[in-house]
């Protein structure tokens, strides 16, 4: 899935000069793997996830994925890859507050359907189908403010999955949830991985969640290490 070599990302700041968020990271992630990345705040977790998610380009190094070197692609090409191949789940859910759960899910199909081949009705059916898969069939017309944190995160997962991505990238998906909801979301992610063979990369502070993943990585000071 991913073949990363010498990945470096530096930021220029006024206060602290140049900061090295990633310092020559090498990483291989196979198709269908479930990987967790842990590390201290400011260690480089989110930056690595942005590189994996084609949200940003590295300062140096290469990220080979989806038959491309993401470091060499244009903004438009990266947008296409995000639209078709990558599903995101965010710590703060990042749902559009004015849209219903179903509409939030539909919003992710739009860019995949740029040619307009999928009708609005088919899009709505597909959104409801995926919501049903995450146990929210009866909440399709609810707006985010009318849902609990766990339900909102499940809507976010449905939004990530509705386009049938090759990889699911989750940034602290349980960070805002209590223990019961955390387990609920973990169960959804684990089931999706097990049933669909979906590649999942999980950034988390939560050691309990990280320990449930088959492969654990740690990143600190921009350097990546494998954990037992």
């Amino acid at each position, binding site marked *: 899935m991913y073949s990363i070599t010498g990945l470096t990302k530096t930021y220029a700041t006024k206060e602290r000069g140049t900061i090295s968020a990633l310092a020559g990271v090498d990483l291989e992630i196979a198709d269908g793997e479930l990987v967790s990345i842990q590390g201290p705040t400011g260690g480089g977790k989110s930056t690595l996830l942005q590189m994996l998610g084609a949200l940003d380009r590295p300062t140096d190094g290469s990220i080979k994925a989806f038959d491309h070197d993401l470091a060499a692609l244009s903004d438009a090409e990266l947008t296409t890859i995000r639209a078709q191949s990558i599903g995101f789940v965010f710590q703060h859910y990042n749902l559009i507050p004015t849209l219903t759960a179903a509409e939030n899910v539909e919003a992710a199909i739009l*860019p995949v359907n740029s040619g307009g081949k999928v009708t609005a009705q088919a899009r709505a059916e597909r959104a409801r189908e995926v919501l049903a898969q995450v146990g929210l069939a009866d909440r399709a017309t609810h707006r985010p403010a009318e849902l609990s944190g766990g339900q909102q995160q499940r809507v976010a997962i449905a939004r990530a999955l509705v386009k049938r991505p090759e990889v699911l990238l989750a940034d602290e998906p349980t960070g805002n949830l209590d223990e019961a909801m955390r387990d609920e979301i973990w169960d959804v992610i684990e089931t999706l991985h097990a049933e669909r063979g979906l590649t999942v990369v999980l950034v988390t502070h939560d050691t309990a969640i990280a320990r449930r993943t088959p492969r654990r990585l740690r990143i600190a000071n921009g350097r990546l290490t494998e954990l037992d």
Partner: protein
Amino acid sequence: MFTTYLRRELSGRRKQTAIVAIGMAVAIALVIIVNAFAAGVRDAQSEALASVYGVGTDVTVTQAPEAGSGGPGQGGQFQFEEGAELSQERLSTGMGTTAFASSDLATITDLDGVAAAVATLSLENSSFSGEVPDQSATPQNGPPTDGSGGSGGPSSFSIDRFSVTGVDASSDALGPLTTMAVTDGEGLSSAGDTDAVAVLDSVYASEVGLAVGDTISVGGTELTVIGIATSTSGEGVATESNVYVPLALAQSLSGLTDQVSTVYVQATSADAVSGVADAISTALPDLSVETQEDLASSVTGSLSSASDLASSLGRWLSIAVLAAAFGLAVLFTVAGVNRRTRELGTLKAIGWSRRRVIGQVAGESLVQSLIGGAIGAVVGLLAIIGLNLASITLTAAQAATAGPGAPPGGGGPGGAGGPGGAAETTTSAVDLVLHAPISPQIVAIALGVAVVGGLLAGAVGGWRAARLSPAVALRSIA
């Protein structure tokens, strides 16, 4: 999805949408009102000018009076002997009017860009009867100015004045004949060039109690009234002259053979007007040439005030309110984009293209402005309807120093001499009801302005949204 998202966003932030829409509505309503008001004033100005100079006239040519020639015009003098009883009648050019050679008409007609030209001779008929006051027994008063007769001497006398215009009846497509219609009897075109006939203005005819078939004394000759003419501006509105006679007859009666006082010129196109005016000035440097634009500047009274109001205050107020509305729209759109950094960044992260994000932001801004524009258009149209129902009457006072056909007015009896110095200024006033036209064009322009405002705000907001990096957008809340 686009419309659903757009609708939800606008209804989700009602307060902001309402502020931008109201701002735009006020601006658009103002644009519509000011434009309609200005168009109404323009129409009124054209009507006022047409009532004086005739429809279709682009340029008028007159002879500027020489300095100090403010007294009686050409054509003869009264002969007074103090204390004598007398009754005299004189037909001459009026105050501030000077005649010039009618051959100048041919010169003008031959110029490039001239479609048509017609000449008239504006005269004033004065009749004096009574006893001439003994000036030696009277303190030195100023000359009488009200035209009703002198007051200086111990004896009384009366002066009767009316204006007479000699017209070329065969050219009724240009000049004063275009602003009137014969409502009783016949027009001058049915008479010969020197027939002793006259057509009377209906207002003047009713004042002096004359009708078709009666006679009127002009320059000491009895003329038969063959027709009564009414101003095309409406009932009760006086035409430019009290009496109209054939041009050749007017020249003959006044002794101004081969003389005219005004030439009305029509250019081949609006673009040619300026060139024609210049050409006439060059060919006939002694004559005074005025275009419609020059003439419009001589209109005073409440019409002039309304024109100033529309062109200065109204225009600048519209621009200021429009700028404020545009600024408000841009400000709120940019603020909205800043507030929605996470939202727009998320959309980019899940694959929304830059174009789709910009389209969404610009679309919201455009619809917001269009809502304001539509409300503004309705408010503006209602205001115009109210304005028209109010039937505001404007007075156009036409001041002229040498203009054609100035109606009879001030001055003492001929021969006594008017005030010296500059040429006399004469004035005619026309009352006009302001009608602000409601045209689809104005509404379209106003809505176009709203679209421009929306697009401007959308462009700025969209540009800001386009610059958002999905990574930075997400990092800001991580």
